[in-house]
């Protein structure tokens, strides 16, 4: 079972066949078509899809033509669910036209993003006829495409909700309230990990994590009580410990994952030797 099934566990899993660009592909009923395509090696450009999150359909790049029971429509592959006999085409002239305009828009929206330039170039788009968005004070360095992944991960997965969209229309940006350090941030860095254009600047230095893009939030890092290495932001450690049921045993809670594993193995071996030792006396 892949991440893609989160939230769909109630669905019965029925194997079905769908056609992608004429190729027969096995899928589970209700599976996200974009995920089937990627598994089958069919490239569909996408920016706002993340298997562990609810379908969003924000970036519009994964647009395909879908024919279901004789009805054809244009739709986003990241929100389209597989049904028996579904036919999907990823490069009809209409899809290509649509996609090219989008690439031009993204080149203007995030003129500093190498990811976008490379992605667009793969589809033959190297220039944009739209006005490029240039803002030297942009906290995201002209690389943000407003896909919303960071906001969704921060809210839906981490439950922190430290960042969100601000303003509207052409002035929309993502950041913390008042563009200042926000105590809701756990310092987990999930936003930077998920960002398709590597727009979010995070740095670990002198025992703290600095979130440069988010108003310079500083979160102290925690040292492993065994090996002494910094291994996680303090706030994240507290939040994880409070969420886990049951929590990590108190004698292990301050250890980094490597030391924790070592300690567990150590305890296992000792316990084993002890029983064996006891056995000898009998």
């Amino acid at each position, binding site marked *: 079972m892949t991440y893609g099934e989160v939230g769909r566990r109630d669905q019965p899993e029925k194997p079905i066949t769908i056609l992608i660009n004429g190729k027969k592909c096995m899928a589970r009923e209700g599976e996200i078509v974009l995920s089937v395509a990627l598994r089958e090696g069919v490239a569909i450009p996408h920016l706002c899809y993340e298997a562990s999150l609810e379908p969003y359909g924000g970036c519009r790049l994964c647009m395909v033509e879908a024919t279901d029971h004789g009805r054809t429509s244009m739709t986003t592959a990241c929100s389209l669910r597989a049904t028996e006999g579904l036919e999907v085409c990823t490069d009809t002239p209409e899809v290509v036209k649509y996609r090219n305009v989008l690439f031009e828009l993204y080149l203007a929206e995030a003129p500093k993003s190498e990811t976008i330039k490379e992605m667009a170039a793969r589809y033959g788009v190297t220039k944009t006829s739209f006005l490029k968005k240039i803002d030297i004070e942009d906290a995201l360095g002209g690389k943000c495409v407003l896909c919303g992944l960071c906001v969704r991960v921060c*809210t839906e997965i981490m439950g922190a*909700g*430290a*960042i*969100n*969209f*601000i*303003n*509207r*229309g*052409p*002035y929309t940006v993502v950041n*913390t*309230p*008042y563009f200042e350090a*926000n105590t*809701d941030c756990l310092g987990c860095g999930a936003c930077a990990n998920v960002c398709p254009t590597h727009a979010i600047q995070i740095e670990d230095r002198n025992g703290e994590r600095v979130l440069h893009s988010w108003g310079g939030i500083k979160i102290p890092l925690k040292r492993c009580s065994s090996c002494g290495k910094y291994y996680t932001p303090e706030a994240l450690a507290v939040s994880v410990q409070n969420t886990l049921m049951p929590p990590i045993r108190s004698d292990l809670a301050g250890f980094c994952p490597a030391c924790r594993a070592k300690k567990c193995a150590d305890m296992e071996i000792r316990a084993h030797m002890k029983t064996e030792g006891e056995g000898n006396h009998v």
Partner: protein
Amino acid sequence: MDEKTLDEIISRYDSPSGRLLGILEEIQTSEGYIPRDVLEMLSVKLDVRLSQLYSLVTFYSFFSLKPIGEHVVTVCMGTACHVRGAAEILTTLEKLLGIERGTTQDGKYSVTTKDNKFTLEIARCFGACSIAPVIDIDGDLYGYTTPERLPEILEDYGWREP
């Protein structure tokens, strides 16, 4: 706004869905803007992330993060008004009110005079194109405006030639 007043507003909204905008609207109306400490208090009281509230407040042009003046003068910069000289109306108003052009970080044009009497804003089409160029003061529309007529209009709202 003190905590008691905020609690009173919140208590009028019993259903958790859709109450955010209502509460924010009452804060905006009573304070003339959304003060930061009130927004932070609201976030704690409703257990809604500050980032979400800030997102809402910056999305709707109805809300303002800065105090606005006693009277709000809005100049229509829609197509019809533009063609009929809205730009000149705007520069004249700026001159009369003694303010410098400025856009806020959200791209919104909104400037308030030092004495907090007037806030000058711009809008796109009031739907009154037939009487262009149009300005709106505190909800009252003034059509066929000319730079010459502006002082007279403003005087009704307490403006005096400096």
